[in-house]
């Protein structure tokens, strides 16, 4: 199961579903039980060559949107729940957010647009949000009212939503003076508040009349028959095969949606998804579900369009600052100087990544335009060697300065390639790099729980807000998916809290610029590349806005008739 707000989403990018290596392990485990297993060499994924995707998905086709048609897309597995407030896994959100909706939605440019809230006002002190609700109806015909919002935010989103927890903490009380108005009072200003009212951030509103007094997790509207306000209704769920959604005939937004139905086919293996797409059994594959090494081949086919769209992910190399010599700032700076980031961008993130300029350069509004890591640490292996000499790590009699365990998740193509390229660059300057590839679960355990690593390659999706990843920097957080580097200080923690507590993006940005400068100096984590994985679709598919990270925004998608 995949999570979109954390490092794991990054690991998903370019992942081949279940990798052959993992399957080989699976086969061997079974074989140990039932028969004998001889080791077989695993095949390496194909390498990507440079070609550019021909076009992007624009809403404006020559004939304009036409209603009708069915689109089939792939998912990697059945969702564990149909309630998008209970998981941050990709399958759960892709499915749940077709049916359920939040008060707002976030565009791929991180702009916040109205959805179930048609408008809102924020008090000057940033403590009171007054929402005016849209005239929406639940799929069972009941009216959508402020009582639903109050019930949902307090009893479902805040209690169960992993990504909503901080917002839930910030809410003091909710008033519902009339069915169309919701007033939320906060305990303290919380800058990201509005952006977390998004379905993809566990902010979906669920119907009070179906959930009140029931067990949220086992309620039928969470498990089998979801009832939301969304444009699509779940019609059929054939376990392990597909979920079929049909147009909601009573959808509250006039004229939408265009497509008659959307089918999500369960195809766990990434290579098989590409084959199914080529065979015409899928019409679209989302970026993190498309094996990125397949993209150049698909781009050569005139029937398809590839595009690199949506939020950017920072690809990171995280130091374990608990271990010497990685606790030494000079060593970290030297190792960054030894990385040819242009080469990494060209060879690992072929065509879909560029060298990062700062810790937040993947979030344009939070990034300091005057900061550029390329000018602070230009690639210079000779200088890197000198820096390591000066830091007290000369080349020893074995030809190395010090050993390093470089850990990566082997089921993620780009994190694995990234680690291999970094290893060769660091070996050049005399580091004895030991590459350690692990499966997803073992990786999480070793890196985030045991902290048994020196450096790890990973990627974080930040959800368009530094709050989306600030837990990886906070000194107080050590759990899974949190601060792996062990770096942090009460001062830095305070800065992040301050950044989250400002009411406007401008005020917040000023604080994030300070944090970015500090991180650029300390380098507990190297922000190497910012990238956006490529998605593929048939040329006829138009108007698909990918939203924050999942497939939730199919409302405006339409098929051109050939």
């Amino acid at each position: 199961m995949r999570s979109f707000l954390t490092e794991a989403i990054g690991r998903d990018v370019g992942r081949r579903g279940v990798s052959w290596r993992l399957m080989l392990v699976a086969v061997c485990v079974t074989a140990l039980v039932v028969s004998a297993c001889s080791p077989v060499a695993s095949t390496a994924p194909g390498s990507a060559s440079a070609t550019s995707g021909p076009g992007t998905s624009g809403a404006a086709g020559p004939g304009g949107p036409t209603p009708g048609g069915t689109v089939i897309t792939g998912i990697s597995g059945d969702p564990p729940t149909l309630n998008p407030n209970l998981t941050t896994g990709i399958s759960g959100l892709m499915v749940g957010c077709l049916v359920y909706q939040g008060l707002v939605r976030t565009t791929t440019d991180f702009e916040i647009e109205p959805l179930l809230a048609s408008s809102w006002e924020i008090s000057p002190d940033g403590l009171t949000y007054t929402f005016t609700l849209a005239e929406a109806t639940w799929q069972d015909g009941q009216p959508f009212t402020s009582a639903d919002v109050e019930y949902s935010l307090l009893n479902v989103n805040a209690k169960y939503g992993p990504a909503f927890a901080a917002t839930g903490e910030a809410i003091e009380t909710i008033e519902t003076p009339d069915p169309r108005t919701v007033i939320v009072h906060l305990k303290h200003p919380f800058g990201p508040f509005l952006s977390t009212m998004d379905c993809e951030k566990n902010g979906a509103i669920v119907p009070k009349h179906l959930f009140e007094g029931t067990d949220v997790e086992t309620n039928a509207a969470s498990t089998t028959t979801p009832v939301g306000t969304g444009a699509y209704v779940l019609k059929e769920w054939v376990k392990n095969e597909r979920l079929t959604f049909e147009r909601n005939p009573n959808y509250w937004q006039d004229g939408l949606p265009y497509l008659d139905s959307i089918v999500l086919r369960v195809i766990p293996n990434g290579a098989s998804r590409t084959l199914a797409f080529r065979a015409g059994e899928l019409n679209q594959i989302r970026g993190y579900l498309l094996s990125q090494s397949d993209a150049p081949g698909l781009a050569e086919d005139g029937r398809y369009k590839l595009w690199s769209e949506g939020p950017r992910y920072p690809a990171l190399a995280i130091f374990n600052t608990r271990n010497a010599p990685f606790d030494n700032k000079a060593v970290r700076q030297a190792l960054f100087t030894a990385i040819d980031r242009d080469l990494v961008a060209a060879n690992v993130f072929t065509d879909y990544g560029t060298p990062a300029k700062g810790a937040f350069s993947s979030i344009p509004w939070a990034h300091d335009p005057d900061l550029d890591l390329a000018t602070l640490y230009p690639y210079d292996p000779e200088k890197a060697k000198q820096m390591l000499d000066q830091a007290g790590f000369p080349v020893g009699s074995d030809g190395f300065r010090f050993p390093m365990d470089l850990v990566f998740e082997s089921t993620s193509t780009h994190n694995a390639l990234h680690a291999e390229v970094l290893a060769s660059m660091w070996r050049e300057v005399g580091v004895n790099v030991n590459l350690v590839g692990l499966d997803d679960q073992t990786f999480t355990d070793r890196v985030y729980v045991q902290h048994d690593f020196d450096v790890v390659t990973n990627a974080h999706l930040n959800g368009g807000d530094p709050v989306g990843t600030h837990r990886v920097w906070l000194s107080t957080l050590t759990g899974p998916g949190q601060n792996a580097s062990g770096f942090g200080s009460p001062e830095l923690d305070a800065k992040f809290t301050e950044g989250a507590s400002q009411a406007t993006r401008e005020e917040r940005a000023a604080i994030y610029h300070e944090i970015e400068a500090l991180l650029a100096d300390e380098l507990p984590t190297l922000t190497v590349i910012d990238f956006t994985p490529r998605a593929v679709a048939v040329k006829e598919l138009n108007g698909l806005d990918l939203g924050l990270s999942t497939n939730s925004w199919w409302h405006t998608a339409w098929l051109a008739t050939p």
Partner: protein
Amino acid sequence: MKLYVATRVVSGLIVVAAIVVVMFFLMRLLPGDPIKALVGDFPAPPEYVEEIRRRFGLDRPLLEQFTLYVGQLLQGNLGYSFLHGEAVLPMLLRRAAFSMALIIPSLIIANVIGVALAVAAARRAGTAADAGIRSLSLLAFSIPVFWMAQMLIVVFAIQLRILPAQGVTSPGGHNDLFALLTDVLAHSIMPVFVVSTHFVALVAIVGRASVLDALQENFVLTARAKGLSPNRVLWRHVLPAAAGPIVTVIGYQWGQALTGTILAEAVFAWPGLGSAFVSAIASRDHPVLLGIFLLASISVVVANLIADLVHAKIDPRIRTAAT
């Protein structure tokens, strides 16, 4: 003979029990957390995580969890999937039906074609035809399953567009039972071909050697000398003598076929036990994994038992040795 069967059943039960015990504790040693698969990597609120742990029984001591599991097992309850909340047994039986739909036709095809090839090669031992069958069998046996599966998809689903690439059925309704059956049949052609290819080759290789051995026997020479027709010699004298090793191979194929389908199911998105196994490993869904180990080991024990009994039936030497 009865004693032989009883001994085999008891020893089979011991093997199955040992597998369950060992796997139960081995799985707990695997790094990873089943909750991660459920809520995603984003750290969930601690109360929510605690609630899930309590519901799964993961907050109890390991030995208590084991006792509970065994208690359930004795009542025929394999527990509930962490990830999907479903009861494991019905879910696995449904999955097993899909796997059987691949394995049984594959084994039948494999044995019919494999034995035919074996006889053809052995009768022409030393000729070009024999060499051809042997090299093709070796080749078929050594092609990686997933590679062959992908190549088939490229040729038949992408280039020629005559077979569906993925899954069991096409999305969209089927007008009648016949349409549904045709659809399922079309979807199963490539997976069945992939699963059976290995076994055709295996049966052909082993069968050729054992038919060849039988052909050298004196009683075959005698039969020929008596002027029996070649076909009669083959059916009455050669094949029964050669059947022992072939039946053994067929029996052991069961376990091999189970593992072989894991790869084939993954490439073809075939929702059988193999794909359930792969996803259960990735999500650390312990009850599902244990259930698969249990079903797989029972079926392997049973398949081997049947193979040995058939072997004993056709080969008196085994029968006498056993009793």
